[in-house]
Structure formats: C-alpha cells, structure tokens
C-alpha cells in the first residue's frame, strides 16, 4: 500500500478526455461516488450468496470506471474476476480479493471527497 497521503487514483487521463472541463469532471466524480458504493455492495452480496456469475458481471461493470480513474492497485484485480470462469477458478481467493477492493475503494472515496469537497 502506498503512503497514506498519496492518491490511489490519477485523474490526468480523465481530465485530458474531458478537455480540462472542471464542471463535467466534478459531475463525473459525483456520479462515481454515488454509484460505486452500490456496485460494491452488490459485489459483496454476490459473494455472500455464492452467485459467482453475478459477481463477475458486477466486476465487469465496475472495471471500466475504475480503469478510467487509473486506480492502479485494482487494475489487475478487476480483470482477474470479470468473467464467470475466472471467478470459478479463483473461488477460494475471492474473499481476499473483495476485501482488497473494499479497502482500496474506501480510501479512494475518502480521497475524492476531500479533493472535490463533496
């Protein structure tokens, strides 16, 4: 894990895509903060219910926004569980993987709220 004050995300790619439009950036971050916790809860619930297919689908959905925010710590993690056959293979490791995702995202949420005063 990186030092506590270092950001786990990098917004330079997103900013570039948006042509440095701060207003839309703000809006997108808000959408991210509003929607991602629900996705995360969905992910956790899938594990509880042992619904590995749904788990892969949620991971697949989350993958692109996390990649856009360049959250490097989760990059490989998300790809490793984005298909049912992968979740089947990693069945034993899933609790650990999800714990990691929860942990990283909790920090990301906090840091984003701080940066964007939300």
């Amino acid at each position, binding site marked *: 894990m990186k030092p506590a004050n270092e950001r786990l995300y990098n917004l330079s*790619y*997103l900013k570039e*895509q*948006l*042509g440095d*439009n701060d207003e*839309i950036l703000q*809006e*997108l971050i808000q*959408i*991210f903060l509003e*929607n*991602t916790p629900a996705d995360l809860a969905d992910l956790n619930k899938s594990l509880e219910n042992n619904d590995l297919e749904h788990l892969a*689908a949620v991971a*697949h*959905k*989350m*993958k*692109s*926004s996390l*990649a*856009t925010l360049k959250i490097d710590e989760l990059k490989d993690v998300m790809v490793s569980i*984005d298909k049912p056959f992968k979740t089947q293979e990693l069945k034993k490791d899933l609790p650990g993987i999800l714990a990691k995702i929860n942990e990283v995202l909790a920090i990301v949420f906090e840091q984003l709220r701080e940066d964007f005063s939300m």
Partner: protein
Amino acid sequence: MSNFKIFIVEDDPFYGEMLKYHISLNPDYSVEKFQTGKDFLNNLHRNPSVVTLDYTLPDISGLEVLKKIMAYNPNIPVIIVSGQEDVSTAVNLLKEGAYDYFVKNDETKDRIWNSLKKIREKLNLEKEIDSLKEEIGRKYIFGNIIKGNSPGIKKIFSLIEKAIQTNITVSITGETGTGKDLVAKAIHYNSAKANLPFIAINVSAIPKELIESEMFGHEKGAFTGAVTRKIGKFEEAGKGTIFLDEIGEMDQYMQVKLLRVLQEKELNRVGGNEVIKVNARVIIATNRNLAEEVKKGNFRQDLYFRLLGLNINLPPLRDRGNDILLLAKYFVDEFCKENDLQKKSLSQKAQEKLMNYDFPGNVRELKAIMELAVVMANSEVIDDNDISLSAATRSSNFLMDEEDTLQGYDKKIIKHFLEKYDNNILEVAKKLDIGKSTIYRMIKNKEI
C-alpha cells in the same frame, strides 16, 4: 437540434456520462443516454442515426438488443462498445450486422469519434445520392419531357402508362428525332425500377467486333487486349433496365446471341464459363421498320417477335398538328430561361411558317430551329425571317425541287403516295382516283 442523433446504451453511469460528454463535444451531434436495454428499445422508434451499444447490459444481452435494432431498421449503424476482448464475440456481433466493435480501453473514445465521423460522411453521401436520384426521376416525369395535346401523342401517353405498370419488353419506333430515348427513360424512371440502373447502348455506335463484349462483358485474356475482366452492360443493368437503341443496325451474329440471352435469361461473358442471370427489363428502339427488315431477311423473325412486346410508335412531328406550336413555344421559353433572356413570342407569320414545314428531323430539329430563332430575333417577337428552315416546306417538298415533265411529276406523285400509305396500292389508287393496274404496271416497268 441537430439531426445526427446518437443513442448511447451504457449501464455504467460513470462511463456513459463520460462518453456522452466526449461525443457532445461536436456541436453537430445530439446525444442521448440509456442505462438499460429496455429503456433504449422503448425509444428505438425515434430513429437514432447511430447507436453505441454496451455489450453487457443488466437486463438484455447486447446481442439481443442488436438483433432487435437490425430487425427494426438494418440501416442504423451500431457500434458495440464492450469490456469483452473475446474475438469470437466480436466476429459474431459483426456478422449480426454491427457496424464496428471496440473494446473499452484508453483509445475507445477516439475510435468512436472517428467511427462517428465516417458514418456521418457515409450518411451524407447516401443522402446526396438519394436526392440526385430523385432529381433525375423528376426530370423524367413524362409530362415534363413529352409534351403535346394531339390525339397521336395522347395515345403515346396511355401506352407509356401501360408500359410503366409491368416489366413487359417495350419496342419504341419512330423517325429520327421523335424522342425514342426520352420515352425509354420516362418508362424506366416512372416504373418500379426507378432506383435501379438505367443502362443504354447505342448499337450502331459500337464497332461490330466490340459489341458482344460491350453487351455481355469478357473475361481477362478472352482475346488480345482483354487485359482485365469487363462487366457487360446486361450485367451492369442488374435488375434495372437495359435500353438497346438502334437495334435495327445489329448484325446477324449478334442477333443470334441476343436471342439466346433473352430466351435463356442468362449469359456467359466472352471467354468465360460462369453463368450470369439476366434480370434486366429490355427496351429497344429503332427508326427502321423492323417488320420490313424481317421481310428483307435483315432481321431475324424469332428475335423480332421476342423484342416486339409493347410497341410504342412515335408519330412524326408533322402529323402532330398544333403540338408543333406548343413545342416551339416551350423550347423558346426554356432557351430564354436557361440563358437569362427576356421571354419571346412567335409572330403569326412565324407560326404559319412552322406549321407548313415538314420537320424531317422532328422534335430534335424543331428544338434546334427555335434556339437559333431566339438568337436571331432582334425584338421580343420572333418573326418568320428569324426562322431558318433547312429543307423545303411541306407544299413543295417533293414536287417543285426541280423542273420535270408531266410524266415525271406523275411518277413522283405516285411514289410519294406509296411511301405515305405504306405501299398499299389499293389505298393509293383510291386516293389518286386512278386504276390500280396503272400503279402495278409502273412498278413492273420499274418506273417507280
């Protein structure tokens, strides 16, 4: 609101919003976003110009949505945006009619941007082609191109009307300059085949040696100089119309070939074995009397019967009475309009001069005469002096050209009447009030 409507179907609100923003950077695009397949399909009737479709949707699979779009309108380009990097999925989607397939990564948005640009260019070109086709169609609305009120031309209108209803072979006959090619185009562009090709071949304009490959195409190496494969006119016409102008000039060898193609409804390119289906409608034209040519043995009878179909025989201009003036005025108006000239009228004398002329070159000649007359006229009224006619006028065209003996005049008169009444000796004898044996004798003695 722009009319280039892009529907984004994306369940991830974050990614969808980013895509929407990115695409909306082009002010010509209007973008809407849908988060579920169901929501999108409920809006499909609003006819998006392009759809970007996320392959993994929460409610319906991307493939299902794609199939529904294709069933609704296969012309809507669908760009699939997917997290799947699976090649077989991509191939499958493209087979189902997807326009493009992108995997979500850092370059996706630029790729979509380019793809949209290309689609837009393509749509604009298609629109342009459609409007050009429409323009051509308008040009050949037959009331616009064939003008006249005479009973003769009214009959032609009703025949054209009949020709338009079906795909029957049409043979158009008539003197030179009566507008046979215009009638052919009017039939094609007002028929159900209007959007298909109209291919014209002027049989007399193509050297005898080339006509076969021109009509049926040839394979590479079929003969010296055949360096590439060539698609023939019949093939080019596809399901459209092929117009064989001046078919009377076709030589015997080609007549046999043509007959075979029309009978079998298929052809081989010169030097080729591949059988090509012939689906084109055939319209032919000639200024010769084909029945006469058959009698003389110049035109095959079997081909003649196959080509005759619905015969439209265009009357010569001199038999169309007041149409001469109607057309003369029309050509004057058109020429003035095209050249930004003030409108000109025809003096009484000019009208009489036109009415007394024979017009061997028919409508084509009249057009040329009137255009010249507009140029020559010094005032707003075209006078008889402005109209220059190339040949003698009707009253003296065959008699007074040169002095002759009374017997000579007799021969000329009888000959003229024979031509006029299609060599019907009984009719001519009746008209001239002479015995038919007189005419027979003159023919026998080769006096006429």
